[in-house]
């Protein structure tokens, strides 16, 4: 399968734009129309492009008044003469008006700034402060009334007024934390149900366990316990101490931020405050907070906490409008219409229909062209939707701060972003790139460049991702297979890495089988002789003889592709694999291999 074939609808993006711009040739138009007959997505795009174009064409061309041509020329020379003689122009120059306007504006802004500073100084005078209530229990309201301090800080102020709690046995708590297994601190286990951490909470008491977890988190000598302490603390940290909130979120990532959002208005307020932060130190966490709010919006849940005025944070709100479900977006738009700011309009105007359609697909909702009462099984592209959802989950699990900007740069055609992407650690860049590829957001040139850079810089990260997303690849979604095929095309080394993974005894048998299947499954023209050394080939042959059925079958197929099928290989293994196989392509391939093996064994017997 060639990359060009796999790219599918992406090849029609340029021609659709040409139709919109009125620059498409007749041939191009016919080609797109023929494609649109079989592709509902492109049909919608085509209708819209043709529709807009027809509006533009049917609009009379904006012609200037031509009757006064000589007067126009005379006016121009009159102004030129006035300018050259140094006398004041007869007609005020637009440029000069602009400078006058700038001077007036600068003076106005300066005056407003001085007035604001004076007002602030007035508010902060000591005698003014003396008028504030002195009782410690009144502190939060007093703060709230004056400076709109975030809810988190107000609650922290309340908590500071409470009596000192009983001391915690830190040594015992640390020992208990060390005793936890990896399974018990998985995000799903602790943040949602707290199964793994429940015994600790029961033993020490909820408040003491929380205080102990905070103490562990602030102790730099206990770094190895920070992840589990952060999970024990969970999103509760935000209400006590901003430093702890940041540390917790940086440890728990998106899962922690989502759990924080689930706490209700106070958690959402914290996320909004963080998302609106303009401190460069908080940039990574700011992105995390925005991502959590977007995730919530995309899931159709309300990202707006009731006590918060989102018009105070227009940039965050504008990002959310683009990602929100209809209800939340409508609320935000209403607020911004009433407020009169423009960010909402820019976000709303420039959000692509394609993005919204993808978001709807990822949310499992019907798009505008799919009736809501249609049974899900009959909707077009359901297998693809399922795959996309899986991929989104993979991307969310591996999200890295700052990645959004890199992907956005790639979407804007920025070639240098490919190198930046390749320099980011872990599976996150590969996962994000895979989702962007599947969503069709990248130009084919940029997509190839990005995959190629990533495959060269981080073949092992790609291998991890391929193994993880292999379940998703089972679905016949051309975009996913295309992306994986592109990885292998761009980086033959990735295929070798997959073979080595198939031979790695530390990996599970299922992963090894997947790795081998993926390495040898594609219809690629691979120079196996140069890609795999003699010892690797020998180990594959050994595996054929000694492995369990599925793994042996995979290695049997591998050796078949290498042309080194050992005589003792058992065709029955392949038959077993064929029975278990669900994918039609693989089934056909295995069946073909069985028949080939049969013919070989009959030749041998002859």
């Amino acid at each position, binding site marked *: 399968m060639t990359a060009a074939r796999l790219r599918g609808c992406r090849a029609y993006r340029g021609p659709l*734009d040409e139709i*919109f*711009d*009125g*620059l498409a040739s007749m041939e191009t138009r016919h080609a797109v129309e023929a494609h*649109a007959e079989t592709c509902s997505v492109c*049909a919608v795009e*085509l*209708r*819209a492009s*043709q*529709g*807009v174009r*027809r*509006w*533009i064409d*049917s*609009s*009379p*061309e*904006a*012609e*200037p*008044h*031509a009757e006064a*041509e000589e007067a*126009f*020329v005379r*006016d*121009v*020379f009159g*102004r*030129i003469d006035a*300018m050259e003689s140094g006398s004041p122009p007869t*007609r005020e*120059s*637009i*440029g000069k*008006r*602009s400078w006058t*306007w*700038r001077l007036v504006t600068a003076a106005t802004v300066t005056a407003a700034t001085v007035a604001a500073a004076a007002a602030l100084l007035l508010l902060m005078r000591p005698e003014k402060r003396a008028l504030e209530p002195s009782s410690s229990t009144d502190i939060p309201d007093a703060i709230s009334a004056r400076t709109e301090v975030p809810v988190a800080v107000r609650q922290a102020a309340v908590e500071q007024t409470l009596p000192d709690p009983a001391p915690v046995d830190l040594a015992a708590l640390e020992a208990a934390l060390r005793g936890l297994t990896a399974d018990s601190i998985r995000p799903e286990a602790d943040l949602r149900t707290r199964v793994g951490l429940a015994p600790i909470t029961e033993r020490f008491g909820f408040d003491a366990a929380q205080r102990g977890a905070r103490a562990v988190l602030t102790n730099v000598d206990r770094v190895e316990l920070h992840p589990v302490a952060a999970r024990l603390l969970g999103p509760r940290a935000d209400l006590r101490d901003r430093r702890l909130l940041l540390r917790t979120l940086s440890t728990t990532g998106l899962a922690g931020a989502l759990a924080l959002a689930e706490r209700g208005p106070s958690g959402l307020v914290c996320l909004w405050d963080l998302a609106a932060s303009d401190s460069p130190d908080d940039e990574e966490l700011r992105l995390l907070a925005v991502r959590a709010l977007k995730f919530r919006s995309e899931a159709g849940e309300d990202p707006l906490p009731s006590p918060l005025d989102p018009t105070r944070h227009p940039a965050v709100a504008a990002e959310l409008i683009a990602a929100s479900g209809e209800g939340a977006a409508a609320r935000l738009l209403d607020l911004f219409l009433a407020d*009169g700011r*423009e960010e909402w*309009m*820019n976000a*709303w*105007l*420039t*959000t*692509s*229909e394609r993005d919204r359609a993808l978001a709807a697909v990822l949310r499992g909702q019907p798009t505008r062209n799919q009736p809501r009462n249609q049974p899900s099984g009959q909707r077009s592209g359901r297998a693809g939707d399922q795959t996309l959802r899986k991929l989104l989950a993979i991307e969310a699990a591996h999200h890295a701060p700052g990645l959004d900007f890199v992907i956005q740069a790639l979407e*804007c*055609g*920025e070639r240098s972003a490919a190198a930046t992407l390749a320099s980011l650690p872990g599976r996150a860049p590969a996962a994000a790139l895979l989702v962007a590829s599947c969503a069709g957001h990248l130009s084919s040139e940029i997509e190839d460049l990005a995959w190629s850079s990533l495959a060269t810089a981080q073949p092992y990260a790609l291998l991890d991702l391929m193994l993880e997303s292999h379940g998703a690849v089972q679905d016949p979604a051309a975009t996913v297979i295309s992306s994986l095929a592109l990885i292998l095309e761009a980086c033959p080394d990735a295929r070798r890495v997959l073979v080595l993974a198939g031979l790695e005894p530390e990996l599970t048998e299922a992963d090894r089988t997947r790795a081998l299947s993926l390495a040898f499954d594609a219809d690629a023209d691979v120079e196996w002789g140069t890609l795999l050394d003699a010892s690797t080939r020998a180990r594959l042959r050994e595996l054929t003889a000694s492995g369990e059925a599925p793994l042996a079958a995979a290695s049997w197929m591998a050796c078949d592709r290498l042309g080194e099928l050992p005589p003792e290989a058992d065709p029955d293994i392949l038959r077993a694999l064929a029975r278990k196989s669900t994918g039609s392509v693989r089934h056909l391939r295995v069946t073909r291999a069985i028949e080939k093996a049969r013919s070989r064994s009959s030749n041998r017997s002859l």
Partner: protein
Amino acid sequence: MQERRGANTPGADDPEGAEGALARIVGGACGGDRGAFASLIRIFRPEVQRIALRLIGNHEDAEDVAQETFVRAWGQLGRFAEGHGSAEVAAERLGAWLVGISVHIVRDLQRKKSRAPRREAAAVAMQLAYRIAARRSDEPDAVVSERETQQLLNAALAALPERLRTALVLRTFEGLDYAAIAEITGLRANTVRTHVMQGRRALRRILGPALELDGEEEIR
């Protein structure tokens, strides 16, 4: 851009002669010949003013912009010609240069306007689009007048942020390529491409209600 100059272009009947004649006029204007510059004004004014009209939305301001463009051009013509070596090369680039000046003047002009007109334009465009959609829903054969079409497109363009409007007008309405637009606006070609893409989306979004029925008819 040359194909739009039409009857005002010297030697319009003979394409090879037209280029030579234009180069001679440009050479003369660069040397301070007022008669040659007057010819340049007659040749390029329709194009400059038409683009200004798309960008700014009313005839009076568009004419102001066109005048200011030629006044500024007169002062900078010598430097422009020096930068391009020969009159032939300068003649080739003159149209883009003049459009670039007018785009900058429009930008200056719009900076000093309040932001309110954009919101009002968006509201007007949406109202018009929904009104047309409702009328065509009741009466599928209803004709949309040229005036309505013009109003809707003008309002839709006025609702766009300035950078998207400029890129969209130069690409989708004037048919310039991305490199030429990049030269005019002083942006990178990839940035222009992004602005045009966002402008297309925005225009589709605003015209959406009016397009709905229209588009269905076209396909079926």
